C-alpha cells in the first residue's frame, strides 16, 4: 500500500473529545489562539474559515526558532488569528482525539498515522476543510504570509501553490 504525500486522514472531519489530563503545554506559539484539533475543526466548519494545523513537539528546536523569529511577527499574528482557525497537535502527546470515523486515538498516534516525520509540520485547509498543502520544517515570515495570502485570496482555486509563490 502506497501513501500520498499530503494527508492520509480526513482531517477536515476530526472532532475532539476533551478526554485528556494534558493541556496544550507542549507549546504552540504565544499570542495565537491555537485550539485543540477537535475544537478547531468544529470551529472552522461552523465559521467556514480556513484552518492551519500545526504538528509540533515539546522542546522542538525548529519550533522554538519559528516561535521566536517568525510567529512573533505582527503581520502573522494579525493574519492568522483573525482569518484562520488554528489547531495544534503535540506529536508525542497522549491527548486523545476522536476521528470522524468514531475512532479515538492519541495525538501521537494521529501524527504517526498521518506520517508526520518531523516538526514543525503545517497543514493548511481550505474553508471547506479540504487539505491543500503541507509544509515541513522552518518557514520564514515571508513564506507564512504568502501561504496565508494564497488561501485567503482563494488562489488555490486557480493555481498551484508553487506557481503562486513564483508570481509574488
Amino acid at each position, binding site marked *: 500500500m502506497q*501513501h500520498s504525500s499530503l494527508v492520509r486522514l480526513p482531517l477536515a472531519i476530526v472532532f475532539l473529545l476533551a478526554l485528556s*489530563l494534558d493541556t496544550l503545554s507542549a507549546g504552540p506559539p504565544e499570542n495565537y489562539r491555537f485550539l485543540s484539533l477537535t475544537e478547531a475543526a468544529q470551529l472552522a466548519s461552523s465559521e467556514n474559515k480556513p484552518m492551519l494545523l500545526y504538528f509540533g513537539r*515539546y522542546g522542538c528546536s525548529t519550533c*522554538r526558532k519559528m516561535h*521566536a523569529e517568525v510567529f512573533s511577527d505582527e503581520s502573522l499574528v494579525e493574519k492568522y488569528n483573525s482569518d484562520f482557525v488554528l489547531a495544534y497537535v503535540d506529536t508525542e502527546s*497522549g491527548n486523545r482525539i476522536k476521528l470522524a470515523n468514531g475512532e*479515538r*486515538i492519541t495525538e*501521537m498516534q494521529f501524527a504517526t498515522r498521518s*506520517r508526520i516525520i518531523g516538526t514543525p509540520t503545517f497543514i493548511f485547509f481550505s474553508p471547506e476543510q479540504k487539505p491543500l498543502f503541507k509544509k515541513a520544517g522552518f518557514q520564514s515570515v515571508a513564506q507564512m504570509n504568502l501561504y496565508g495570502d494564497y488561501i485567503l485570496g482563494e488562489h488555490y482555486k486557480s493555481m498551484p501553490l508553487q506557481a503562486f509563490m513564483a508570481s509574488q
Partner: protein
Amino acid sequence: MILRFGGLCLALASFQVQASELWTFENRISVSGSPVDAVYHHLDGAGRKHIAASTDSVAVIWEDNRSQAPQIYVTQKSYAQESFPAALPVSSGSEAYEPAIDALSDNRFVLAFEQDGAIFARVLSAEGLAEPARLSQTAASHVSIASLDDRVFASWRERDKGRWFVKVAALSITDDNRILLESSRPIEVEGLETPVLFPAIAVNEAGLCVAWEDRRAGHTRLLFSHSADAARSFGEPQSLNEFLSNRTEYDRGNGVTRVSLASFGADEILAAWMDKRRGGLGYGIFAALGDGESFGPNEKVHGEEGDAQPHYNPATAGSRTGDFVVAWDDFRRGDSDIWVSSYNEDLEWSHDYAPAVASGDGEQSHPAIALDEQRNLHLLWIERNQLDGPSRLWYSLGRTRQQP
C-alpha cells in the same frame, strides 16, 4: 560472529545468529474475529504490555469500541488451543483506555487499566475475572504493571492539585484472586509542574525500575528510578537516553518517547524507546541494557536496512532464561510491517526481521510481545486494510529454534 583480538576483527558471518533464525512463526490466529465496521482496536498502553505468557497459557488485553465507547477486553488460551475464546469485558465505566497485563503463576494474569480517569487492576484466572481494585486516588492514566513470583507492582501517572506524579504501587493477591493495595507512593514526593507521560515498569530479583517521559527540562527526556525495597523508597531519577542539546540557540535536545521495559535473566532490564537523535529521518528505535539501577550506553536497535525510515511503537520482552527481544513497526516497504530484533552471538542487535505472518499487504502495526520459559516468542499486533478502516487483532506463536 565477529571475534575481537586486540583490535583484530575476524568476520565469521556464517556463525552469526539472526532474529530470523531464532523463531519459526506459526500460522496467525485471529484474536478479535473479522473486522467490524467502525470498530477499532488499540494497543497503546504504557510500555506496550498487552500480551503475557504464563505456565502454559497466553492472554492478551486491548481496548476497542465495539460497545460504542472505548472499553477493555481480555482473552486467554492454552498454548495447545488453536483459537481464542470470546473476549471478556474487563472495564465497566463510561470509557476505559490503555490496559496492561503480566503473567502470574498457575495460568493467572494480572491486568491494569484506566477507567473514567482512575487506575484499576484485577486478576484473570480459570474462574474468570476477580473483582477490580482501584489503585489511584486522583486523576490518573498511563498504567503499567509487572510481576515477579506473584509479587505485583504497578506504575502510573497521577495529577493532584496541579502537579504531576509518577506513582508506584505494591500489590498482593489473595487466595481468591482479589488485589490488595499494599502501598502507593510517588517516586518524587513534590511532584512536577510539567507533565510526565507513559511510565513503564519492570521488576527483577534486584528490585524494580520505572522509566517515563519527563518534560521538566524544557524538552522530553526519559528518566528512570530504581527501588530495591519493594517500592518503599526510590532512587533519584536519572537520564536513560543520551541526547544532544544546545547545538543552536534554540536546541534543548532531540525527541524521545514511549519507553518500554522488560526484565530478563535474574537481574537485568532492557529498555527500548523511540528516539529522534537521527534528525530528519524521524524516530529510530534505541535501547539500553542494565540492572535497573543503572544502564549501559544507548544502542541503535534497527539495522542499516531501516536507517532511512522512521520507526514506531517499540515493545520489549524478556525471559528469566536470559533472552530479550524488541519489536516495532515501520513502513520501509510502503505500508507498515512488524519487525523484530534481538542480540546475536556477538552481543549486537541482529538484522531486522519481519515475520511473514505480520507482514505484507495492509497495515500491520502496534506489536506487543512476550517470551515464555521455553524461549518461544508470542506476538500480538493490529491489522488494518486501510489506515482509517476497521481493525482486527492477530496472534502468532514463534516457536524457538534454539536448544533448551
